[in-house]
């Protein structure tokens, strides 16, 4: 973009600075409130300088079984990520390599599976899982999250596979390798960065999900997001505990933003922005 003068630069800094502060306030509040003693939580004027306490974090793990919730979240998240990336990258390879005039329609169809409103299928899921005894198990959530994660993986990995030259596969074919071997010895290693990106997206989605986790789990498979929500009850709201739990939950997302920013655009806009 074209050069700008010092006066204009000052203007840009002031405006973006104000917007940045406004956007950061809620995040600051989560962190600050998770460290504030309960007595100071709503003091007027708000205390900016307070003695931070880890009491709320301690409470999370002693008064509540939050470690169990995090473990559930991790089981569900890692399970769904591993399953989705495995199945999805296989499907993506097929879509990338099969020559057929309607292959793009197939890719769009698979992607559209991700976009349907979860609420529309939560009732059938509830009934189906109830009848097969999967309600309130991590497996139920692993299956459900995969319905969103597989289409995303297929869509993103197709782009990565498209960039691996087919001549490499043909060379291996002439050398005497079968298609399955070619896939995991040549194509997959070359698309490894894509695999990592997909895994991260699957992880974040599953980790953050709330609606299905709320509907399909009870006490034993409860994930971290549902647990934090359950700290909220109108008579005795434990804000410190809610904010401490919230802060723990938002850590993976923040790490992702800070480390893999360049993949964020591709993943979140489904490749519609290059």
């Amino acid at each position, binding site marked *: 973009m074209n050069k700008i003068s010092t006066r204009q630069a000052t203007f840009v800094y002031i405006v973006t600075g104000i917007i940045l502060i406004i956007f950061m306030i809620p995040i600051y509040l989560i962190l600050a409130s998770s460290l504030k003693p309960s007595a100071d939580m709503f003091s007027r004027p708000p205390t900016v300088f307070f003695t931070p306490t880890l009491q709320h974090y301690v409470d999370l793990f002693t008064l509540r079984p939050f470690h169990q919730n995090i473990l559930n979240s991790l089981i569900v998240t890692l399970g769904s990520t591993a399953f989705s990336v495995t199945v999805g990258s296989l499907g993506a390879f097929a879509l990338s390599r099969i020559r057929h005039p309607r292959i793009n329609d197939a890719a769009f169809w698979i992607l559209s599976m991700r976009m349907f409103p979860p609420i529309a299928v939560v009732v059938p899921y509830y009934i189906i899982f109830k009848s097969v005894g999967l309600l309130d198990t991590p497996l139920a959530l692993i299956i459900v999250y995969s319905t969103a994660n597989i289409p995303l993986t297929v869509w993103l990995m197709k782009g990565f596979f498209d960039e691996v*030259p087919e*001549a*490499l596969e*043909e*060379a*291996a*074919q*002439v*050398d*005497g*390798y079968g298609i399955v071997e070619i896939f995991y*010895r*040549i194509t997959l*290693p*070359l698309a490894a960065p894509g695999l990592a990106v997909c895994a991260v997206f699957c992880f974040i989605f599953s980790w953050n999900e709330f609606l299905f986790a709320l509907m399909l789990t009870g006490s034993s498979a409860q994930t971290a997001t549902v647990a934090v929500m359950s700290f909220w009850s109108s008579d005795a709201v434990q804000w410190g505990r809610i904010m401490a739990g919230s802060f723990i939950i938002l850590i993976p997302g923040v790490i992702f933003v800070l480390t893999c920013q360049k993949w964020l655009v591709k993943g979140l806009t489904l490749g519609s922005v290059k």
Partner: protein
Amino acid sequence: MASVSLTNVVKAFGAFKVVHGVDLDITDGEFVVLLGPSGCGKTTTLRMVAGLEDVSGGEICIAGEVINDRPPKDRKIAMVFQNYALYPHMTVRQNMEFALKPQKLSKAEVDAKIAGVAGMLGLDALLQRKPAQLSGGQRQRVAMARAMVRTPEVFLFDEPLSNLDAKLRTQVRMEIAKLHKQLGTTVIYVTHDQVEAMTLADKIVIMKDGYIEQIGSPEEVFAHPKNLFVATFIGSPSMNLFRMTVERGDKGPVLSSAAFTIAAPVDKSGKLTPGQAVTLGIRPSDVRLARAGEPGAIEARVEVVEYLGVEALVDLRVGTQEFIAQIPAGERPAPDETVKVVFNQAGLHLFDSESGQAL
């Protein structure tokens, strides 16, 4: 080592045919070049031999066996790809090992083969490098090495030199010729570069629009082009063409146009009938300046002179007709001069204007 034969081989995508019934016999140890402009079907033909494209019709045999439906690995071939297709995540040695692995050889045999080929191609020092750390010429060499370790019966080359700069291309071209002499393996080589074809081939197959236009040795296709396409495609600068009409002359038929009239070549006169439209072809190297008083000389105006050192290319004009003469640089005229030129009788080519076929 093996012979290869293609019988009426067709490639069609739906109703769209890209290769129309190609017939080709390649004897054991022959170096055959498929030559033609892009889109002529040469690469598709090669890929059918390799097994990377299905054959829509006809038969391909290697060593006398029909291999139409066999996977590439069972065809005893090795291929060098246009962009080399080196596995970027493997070192040079690993690339070669990977190519050998399906043959299930002992470690000692693999090492011996790699050492042998690496030595032959001067790759010893590069074995631990990855493709990204190699220059274009080195990559090309690794691609050949990877094909050679497999000791195939037939080598397939798909435009292997097109990514190299001009100097390197000449060098590698000579190396390929040397390797072929050394190994004696059958080679099918695809290129659009006529110099590569002329210098490497035992037999050139010239293709256009999915048809074979001519098969022959480099000398044959240069000296006796079967049709106008081959005549103009082979040779640089391209053959001069004149549209002429056959007329009756005092001593047999003559060819005449608005610009000039010359006697028809004696050996062709039997095939000519008065009024017939023919195309006269003459290579620039067969046009020379006339000696003083030489009969049958044509007067032409010099438009442009391109000095090339040993030789000069002279753009000439007779009436509306332009043509090029390739003459010793010392004899070159100045622009705008008027000169007299004659055509070497042995260099005259005649084509039927309608069919384009040589007469």
